[in-house]
């Protein structure tokens, strides 16, 4: 009897507060607004980001021996001759490149992120309202920005076991506030401008977290986890901080450079 009552109470608590809501688009469901103009503030890794690092400098990146060999053979002139100036502007690296980003909804389920440094465009594909998650295209050559699948991160759970009617537990904050992005289908490039390599098999997981500070400044911090079975000994984890600007007046497009 007591078990029944507890289960009933828990079931009552599990009821949604109102009638079922129709599926919403990613734009309508956004828990935070990441759109606008943002500038990267270089308070970390200054001498590896604001200037081209010294050849053979792999500091802070968990590279393996093969990556060191490739990095020590870095030749920017060779990249220029091959038209590969954008090798250090791919998705695994672009959020560490000093510059400005512009974020806007391309449509109801696609968020567009543009960079002025290297004039790159990233598209974050959400599942359409009530539809299946987007599928990564199969085959074809990788690109600098790859293919990105996005969602608004759900509250963390220890395992993917459904628990629709919790007993003796209550979940609060069923939806997180983070934008979660998973990127694959990449073209091989550089993690840093001095030729630290990543392979085409690299995957990138990102989490964009919005925060507002006491002085009213708005920021987002993106935690980036790069996995590369070819050149890294483990995940490479960085987090990059961007401050919101009132408009796009400081937007300064510039092409990719190798040096």
């Amino acid at each position, binding site marked *: 009897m007591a078990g029944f*009552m*507890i289960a*009933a*109470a828990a079931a*009552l*608590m599990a009821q949604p507060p109102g009638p079922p809501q129709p599926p919403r688009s990613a734009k309508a469901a956004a*828990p935070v607004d990441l759109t606008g103009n943002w*500038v*990267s*503030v*270089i*308070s*970390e*890794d*200054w*001498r590896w980001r*604001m*200037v081209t*690092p*010294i*050849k053979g*400098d*792999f*500091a*802070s*990146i*968990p590279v393996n021996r093969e990556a*060191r060999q490739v990095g020590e053979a870095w030749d920017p002139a060779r990249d220029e001759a091959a038209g590969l100036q954008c090798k250090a502007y791919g998705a695994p690296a672009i959020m560490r490149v*000093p*510059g*400005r980003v512009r974020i806007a909804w391309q449509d109801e389920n696609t968020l567009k992120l543009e960079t002025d*440094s290297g004039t790159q465009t990233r598209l974050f594909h959400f599942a359409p309202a009530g539809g299946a998650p987007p599928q990564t295209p199969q085959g074809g050559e990788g690109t600098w920005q790859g293919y990105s699948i996005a969602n608004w*991160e759900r*509250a*963390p759970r220890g395992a993917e076991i459904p628990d629709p009617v919790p007993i*003796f537990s*209550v979940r*609060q*904050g069923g*939806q*997180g*506030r*983070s934008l979660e992005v998973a990127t694959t289908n990449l073209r091989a490039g550089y993690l840093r401008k001095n030729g630290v390599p990543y392979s085409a098999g690299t995957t990138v997981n990102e989490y964009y*977290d919005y*925060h507002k*500070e*006491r*002085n009213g400044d708005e920021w987002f*911090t993106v*935690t980036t*986890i790069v996995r590369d079975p070819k050149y890294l000994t483990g995940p*490479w*984890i*960085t*987090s*990059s*901080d961007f*401050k919101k600007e009132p408009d796009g007046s*400081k937007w*300064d497009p510039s092409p990719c450079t190798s040096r």
Partner: protein
Amino acid sequence: MKRMVGLIAATLLAAPVWAQVDFTGEWAPAYHEDGPERLPGPELGDYMGIPLSDAGRLRADSYDADRISVVTEYQCRPHSSDYGMRGLGNLRVTREIDPANQNLVAFHTYMPAWGSMRTIWMDGRPHPPAYAEHTFQGFSTGVWEGNMLTISTTHLKANYLRRNGVASSDKRIVTEHWTRHGNFLTVIVVVEDPVMLTEPFVRSENWYLDPGQKLPQMYCEYAAEVPAPVGSVPNHLPGKNPFLTEVAKWYGLPVEATRGGAKTMYPEYRKVMPKPINPQPAKCERFCVCTTLADCNLNETVTAPGGAPAPRR
């Protein structure tokens, strides 16, 4: 029956303050940003990426690395709660639950570096009045913003922004934002220091869950390491510190950039950055990998281009 269901439901619903995300556990730091600064330690005169005020820069310029060896009070000086997140930061987080109502009362953190223990109050208590004691860990309260834990810390003692003499004042206020993504923890630390900084100093650090981690207790013993007259404090008077340009020479950087300041932290600075006094070395020779203390090559014997000796640590 109806009454009992209502009673049980009311009991389960009574707790107003849940941990929306549980940060408890053993966390190991990823030194994947600024490894050489955070592991063996920063170069003297490296203020890059810090929005230093003139006062903050003057204070940093006066620093002499012998200070810690001579002034024993410095030797066991703990890392403050804000610097600790950037420094040598293995971390344990536990939480305190009120057994009477299962409310979250506080998170507690422990970092082995100087045995730093800290409490982040989650029960809505106010900060103490301004005249209350200042400590290295300060007084912290937290609130939830969705699944982000936002922490405000006041009543801090003066400490480090970087452990090469870049100081923080006891007037600073620190805001942190903790987020957990799977088994990764990201902590954004925002330091507002009206004395040493011209704008908020925003950095973010990352940890990964390491359930097997066992943290040691740290004991610190004072010992005079360098003979010096009693009461002396090694320092450099304004304009007299000969070591401040070494980092620029060593890495082929403009001296102005190494001096920090807000203007050097924005992308447009790259267009107006002065030329370096020494060319960049052709090949990296110091701290070339550096993701752990084990792989961070000090290589103190290398001579910088232009003949400058290796920066002192």
